[in-house]
């Protein structure tokens, strides 16, 4: 057991070594990590509560105040601190993005694996469902869905509705991708051997198919998270977010609603836009690099340093 742990540690450190060499990946990791940290430690990083109105000496709200010592990114139309809203908005945007991303990943992987592995009728049925979802334009469908769900008075948070709608609509590309990969893997001879060993479908999927498509799933999850954050921003910008818990998209919505553009209050609408770019860019960079690194064909080469190979061959030999 102990031996295993050190091996795992070594693999991890080797993984880090290989990862560190990739500048873009490092940048992506940095972008995502800072956003997550900001969201986690929001109370420590923000001087005000996001709903708190900053007042001047006369007790009047500082509306549309440009960046200053009091408010690092200025204030909005009601005199609230933009920086604090941005930090707290990260919580909403990231939570929705991550949850929706995970749901999409789970549904997509499930559909992809089942369709690819069992083929035939199962494949046909699942892929037709996927096709239908693929051809319906996302945005109108989501608008209709979110609006309808909110009118139904379900007593659930609008954010939950957003998570569900995004998560249950954005799995189609993942499903297709994973299906195609499973199709090639299930024809490999080691799957036939596994059947010959006496393995059932569950065992084959768990032990032989899943490890091989795991890199694809991980990469896709990161990419889907970025899509989910973007989509959430879009929907919130259109006014479908939770007004009590503004995300970055909702902040943009407010900014346009309260004519920040005509007032020249660039500090109102630029920071949330920039934050969205920050996280999605980070996710995309990270996703691309992870894909490169987690490819099972490359893994072994990454993890096995040359010295180890030589040492093992010397001891083992043929």
């Amino acid at each position, binding site marked *: 057991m102990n031996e295993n742990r050190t091996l795992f540690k070594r693999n991890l450190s080797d993984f880090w070594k290989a990862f560190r060499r990739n500048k873009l990946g490092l940048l992506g990791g940095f972008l995502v990590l800072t956003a997550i940290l900001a969201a986690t430690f929001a109370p420590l990083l923000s001087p005000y509560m996001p709903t708190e109105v900053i007042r001047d000496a006369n007790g009047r709200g500082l509306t549309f105040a440009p960046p200053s010592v009091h408010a690092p990114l200025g204030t909005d139309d009601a005199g609230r601190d933009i920086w604090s809203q941005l930090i707290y908005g990260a919580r909403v945007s990231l939570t929705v993005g991550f949850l929706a991303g995970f749901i999409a990943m789970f549904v997509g992987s499930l559909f992809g694996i089942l369709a690819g592995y069992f083929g035939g009728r199962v494949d046909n049925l699942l892929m037709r469902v996927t096709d239908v979802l693929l051809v319906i334009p996302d945005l109108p469908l989501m608008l209709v869905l979110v609006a309808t769900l909110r009118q139904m008075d379900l007593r659930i948070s609008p954010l939950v509705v957003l998570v569900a709608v995004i998560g249950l609509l954005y799995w189609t590309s993942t499903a297709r991708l994973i299906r195609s990969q499973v199709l090639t893997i299930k024809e490999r001879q080691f799957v036939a051997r596994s059947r010959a*060993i*006496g393995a059932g479908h569950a065992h084959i999927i768990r*032990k032989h198919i899943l490890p091989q498509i795991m890199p694809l799933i991980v990469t896709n999850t990161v990419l889907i998270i970025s899509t989910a954050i973007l989509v959430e921003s879009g929907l919130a910008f259109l006014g479908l977010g939770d007004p009590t818990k503004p995300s970055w998209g909702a902040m943009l919505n407010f900014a346009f609603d309260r004519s920040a553009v005509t007032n020249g209050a660039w500090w109102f609408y630029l920071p949330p836009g920039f934050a969205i770019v920050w996280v999605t860019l980070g996710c995309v960079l990270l996703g691309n690099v992870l894909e490169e690194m987690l490819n099972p064909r490359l893994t072994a080469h990454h993890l096995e340093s040359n010295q180890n190979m030589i040492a093992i061959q010397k001891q083992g030999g043929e």
Partner: protein
Amino acid sequence: MTIQPLLSVRHLTTEFHLADKQIARALEDVSFDVMPGQTIGLVGESGCGKTTTLMAIMRLLPASGRITAGNVYFNGTDLLTLSEHEMRSLRWKDMAIIFQGAMNALNPVMKIGDQIREAILLHNLMQRQAAEQRVDELLEMVGIPRLRRDQYPYQYSGGMRQRAMIAMALACSPDLLFADEPTTALDVMIQAQVLELLKQIQKNLGLAIVLVTHDLGVVAEMCDTVVVMYGGKVAEYGPAELVYNQPQHPYTQRLLEAFPDLSRSIELSAGSHRPDALSGGQDLATIPGTPPRLNALPPGCRFNPRCNKSMEICTQSAPKLVDMATPGSGARQLAACHLLNGTEIEDL
């Protein structure tokens, strides 16, 4: 007292559905017996149904193929009547298979040791700890150093992979081992090693081996009994010495002619150290043409378009298997050819 055969294949027939609604009869009326502890060779060119036979016996045909007729008795029970669940628990525990091409049959992202352990744990044969020990035992049996159990297939040489496959096949102590071209793609030295290992294991564990190969030399060295297949049918079936020394079916005869006889054909011409088979020895015989396409079989005997002894009747009706061994000798040498006048047989 007669010994019951371990595996008894009777009239096995399979069909494959091809893309354009065509049907390929990959096997037709294949019958043979495997006695406990015996080695039997399935020989024939590529595409003659050797691998399909193994897969049909283990009920692992791809989705497009199915068994349309016949029985497969293993220790008296007909495997074709078992449920998929019963079949699963029987696979590997009673019959294991060494696949063609060890590299492909090993999961590239799983450690060799874990892959060997997989079968043991899958059948709940022992606890994890004991299974680990069993893996070490198996690796030692096939001569792989313990240090290398945590390596991946790509770190193994071809011969070692094949030996790892053998270790894996032995994991659940099967009674019957299918070896599907175990020495293909290995160099001659490693081939000899692998065959030696198989022989040794058979001697020590007393298991029966069905060896699929197109290498007649391997068959001669390993097998007690030979089944020569052509176009999905049994062409000749009998004890190895008889089939080798008095081949009855024209296909077997030509197959044996096509095999180089080292004692005869290589002579060194004077002043040269190069074996000059072309001038000094005999030309190697070949059989012109290729095996029939299984969706467009020739009428009558399937070998007739390539047979040098083809007659009128060969294109009209398929020959039956007849016994060509000397009556009363106790052995049976079956062959299916219109030229042969043997004893008719009833039980196959």
